[in-house]
């Protein structure tokens, strides 16, 4: 495991509590902040628990995993909240991460673009590209 001076990164992954709210109830799970993921990924169990049936979704997407390319359903959940930032009607991919993973999902760019510190980060990158 890589050694980091920042205590938040000492486990090798930046994991955060995320609240996912659906038609029935909400679940809180630990998710890894993943700037390389276009979409947020939640486990199938969580989608079902909060009131959705991913098997009935008409929208699907191909994702590359450690076991190859898989086709996973996309659903729109009522809200996704993390560190006090709440995003309504956000698309998430329903897919289970490997059982060895202590985090259950990935917090991808479609959430992070709404997150104030990340908005600033994007602005800074834009400025750097202009100079």
């Amino acid at each position, binding site marked *: *495991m890589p050694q980091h001076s920042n205590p938040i990164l000492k*486990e*090798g*992954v930046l994991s955060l*509590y995320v609240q996912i709210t659906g038609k029935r*109830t909400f*679940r809180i799970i630990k998710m890894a902040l*993943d700037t390389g993921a276009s979409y947020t990924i939640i486990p199938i169990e969580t989608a079902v628990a909060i009131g959705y049936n991913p098997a009935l979704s008409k929208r699907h997407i191909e994702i590359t995993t450690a076991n190859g390319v898989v086709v996973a359903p996309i659903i729109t959940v009522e809200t996704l909240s993390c560190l006090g930032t709440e995003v309504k009607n956000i698309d998430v991919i329903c897919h289970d991460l490997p059982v060895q993973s*202590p985090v259950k999902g990935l917090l991808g760019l479609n959430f992070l673009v709404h997150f104030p510190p990340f908005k600033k980060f994007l602005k800074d990158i834009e400025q750097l590209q202009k100079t």
Partner: protein
Amino acid sequence: MNIEAIRKKYKKEWLLIAIDKMDKKRTVPLFGHILAHSPRRYEIDQRSMNYAKPALVVYSDDKFPKGYAAAF
């Protein structure tokens, strides 16, 4: 019971925890009570899918097992 105390009590297990108190400003569950625990994730997933109230589903440890690293 404090959530982090529950996670320490059930080492290397998946946990289904009913939430009693939350810090909504930070989206962090503070207190709860254990509904189910198991080293097998699918058992907790099954319990969670049949539980209609707000809950936390979490592994007791934030670390990957020895020899594993994340490459999402």
